[in-house]
């Protein structure tokens, strides 16, 4: 059954127009991934308004291709410039940049792209088989189950995010509160507008994403006095083929990284820990761990496989449960709602063309992606050599265009700047931004799930505990939420000295 659906999906994904869209998306996405301040999330956000008039399947192919492209682009900056474009590219710099400095940039990039592709492919195959099953289970879910899953999503940010749990919680709450500004569709009342007409339409998540990630990121990189010391890399067919001949030696790392990536990836915020974990495992099981950090090809393979497997796996909860696994997936979920699709398990029943077209396009886009980046590395690397005095205004203008295009309101451009400053301050003070964005996108869905659950139970919170599936999920959510409190106790019980609290980065 799954194979038939996939075949049907390929008939949609492999039309000339959709292949063109995918290639365009990969090219744009890679540029976005290379540029400082533009990552997957806000790249997708900026281009989302341009897709409003497209057929939804082509639109999602464009946006997901941008996402894949941005993932590939992150590897270029990590290896050649020692700048991780995204947090999950940090581990790639450990060995990628030393390799590039030793003149091995070509093989390092080839290894990075190939590993990305393998990790992505692994996750796509798993999604092809798991997504329908998960959607089938999720069809039985009612509002209490969905609310419990959302609770689990956010509590895993608090428990597993690694930062200050109070600050993570504040970010989440702020996101939800911003989502509730404006018209309450259930009662028709205006909320939290305080009589200001500009607040009536609420805060648009696209504008928030563009400001928080785009402008905020530029401010931060300017403050850190980022200078690009790029290393040139030669990459040609011979280098690619020679590298491909070595790569099978790392089969174990490929498999391990893919599994880690997939497992961590469908939980929110999983790509970054997955890449570090995969790197650590590769180092531990290596025959020469002392070479790691000095320019070992396996040290590039491990994090890239895991990060891409995780990045793709983040799409699984989005299409089956309507819960995004990453900020980029959150923006796409917002896109689904705008295109008039109901995210969640019903997609498989009501819009099979869309879902299977999307899944099939993951295969085609990633194949196109790896070929495009291998062919155009010098072009992409040249973008980072553009002086900052040109790059910064161009990025700001592009962000402004994206923010304005959402609903043609000039005030949105101001909001974007404001969100940029908030993003800068929050990043400096270690308030995580990803959960804020997720909460902003999911706000209405969560509130409706909560309201409907409470109406079902006539106001009793017990509904989240007494229904078996919801109960298990709620219990897990509460466990994650309490983890920051429980962990020190557990350490003391076992006689370990309590670990020092994670300090701020700066």
């Amino acid at each position, binding site marked *: 059954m799954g194979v038939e659906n996939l075949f049907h999906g390929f008939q949609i994904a492999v039309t000339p127009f959709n292949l063109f869209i995918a290639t365009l998306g990969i090219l744009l996405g890679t540029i976005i991934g290379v540029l400082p301040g533009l990552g997957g999330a806000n790249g997708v956000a900026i281009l989302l308004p341009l897709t409003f008039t497209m057929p939804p399947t082509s639109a999602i192919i464009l946006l997901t291709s941008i996402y894949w492209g941005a993932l590939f682009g992150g590897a270029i900056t990590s290896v050649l410039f020692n700048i991780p474009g995204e947090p999950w590219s940090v581990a790639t710099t450990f060995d990628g940049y030393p390799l590039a400095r030793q003149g091995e940039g070509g093989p390092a990039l080839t290894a990075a792209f190939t590993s990305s592709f393998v990790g992505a492919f692994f996750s796509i195959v798993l999604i092809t088989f798991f997504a329908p099953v998960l959607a089938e289970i999720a069809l039985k879910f009612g509002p209490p189950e969905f609310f419990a899953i959302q609770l689990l999503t956010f509590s895993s940010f608090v428990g597993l995010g690694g930062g200050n749990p109070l600050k993570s*919680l504040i970010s989440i709450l702020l996101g939800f509160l911003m989502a509730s500004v404006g018209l309450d569709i259930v*009662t028709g009342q205006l909320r939290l507008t305080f009589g200001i007409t500009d607040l009536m339409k609420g805060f648009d998540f696209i504008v928030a994403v563009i400001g928080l990630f785009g402008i905020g990121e530029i*401010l931060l990189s*300017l403050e850190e006095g980022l200078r690009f010391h790029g290393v040139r890399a030669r990459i040609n067919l011979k280098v690619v083929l020679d590298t491909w001949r070595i790569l099978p030696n790392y089969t174990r790392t490929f498999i391990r990284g893919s599994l880690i990536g997939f497992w961590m990836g469908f939980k929110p915020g999983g790509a970054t820990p997955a890449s570090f974990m995969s790197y650590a495992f590769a180092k531990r099981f290596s025959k020469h761990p002392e070479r790691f950090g000095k320019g070992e090809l396996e040290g590039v393979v491990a994090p890239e496989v895991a990060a891409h497997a995780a990045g793709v796996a983040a799409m699984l909860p989005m299409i089956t449960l309507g819960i995004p696994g990453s900020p980029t997936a959150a923006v796409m979920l917002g896109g689904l709602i705008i295109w008039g699709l109901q995210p969640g398990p019903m997609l498989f029943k009501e819009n099979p063309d869309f879902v299977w077209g999307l899944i099939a396009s993951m295969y085609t886009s990633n194949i196109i992606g790896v070929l495009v980046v291998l062919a155009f590395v010098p072009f992409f690397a040249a973008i980072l050599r553009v*002086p900052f005095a040109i790059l910064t205004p161009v990025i700001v203008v592009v962000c402004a265009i994206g923010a304005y295009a959402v609903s043609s309101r*000039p005030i949105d451009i*101001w909001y974007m*700047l404001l969100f940029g400053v908030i993003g800068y301050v929050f990043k400096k003070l270690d308030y995580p931004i990803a959960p804020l964005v997720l909460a902003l996108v999911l706000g209405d869905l969560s509130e409706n799930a909560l309201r409907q659950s409470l109406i079902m139970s006539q106001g009793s919170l017990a509904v989240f505990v007494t229904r078996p599936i919801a109960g298990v999920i709620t219990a897990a959510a509460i466990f994650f939420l309490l983890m920051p409190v429980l962990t020190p106790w557990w350490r003391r019980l076992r006689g370990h000295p309590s670990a020092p609290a994670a300090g701020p980065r700066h």
Partner: protein
Amino acid sequence: MRTADLVTASVLLVVGGVIIFDAVRLGIGWGIEGPMSGFFPFWLAVILVACCAGVLAQTLRGDATRPFVTRQRLRPVLAMLGPAVGFVLLTTGVTVFEIPLFPALGLYVAAAVYLAFSMRWLGDHAWPAVAALALGLPVVTFLIFERWFLVPMPKGPLEGWLGF
């Protein structure tokens, strides 16, 4: 760092308080259609206030070490933020109490001015390059968005004069 932390947490605490106030006005109890409009924001804001209080307490107990940002490092940030604010001002214009203090020039003209300013005064690029990019990029953007994607951007008198 410590002051910035305290200020941020205090601001958010006040925001939480204001939200609680508005939520109570909307009703936080049980209405005809189930929970009333203020129910969800109310409880979120209550937890927000509690968390902010927690952060305040944490910060007060911790010691003040690193500054939030040094003056030297703040300069490039302001050098970017200033022109960016100027760009948005030129794009949207300023209207205070229905009185236009400054006309809106539209996004394309503002982008040209912004790019030229940044390239010339922050980047020390040669005038020919400045002119080429500052005129060329907005024109290309115009063609892409207004012509190809049919997404209208804010326009000012110049575009009107040219007949768009």
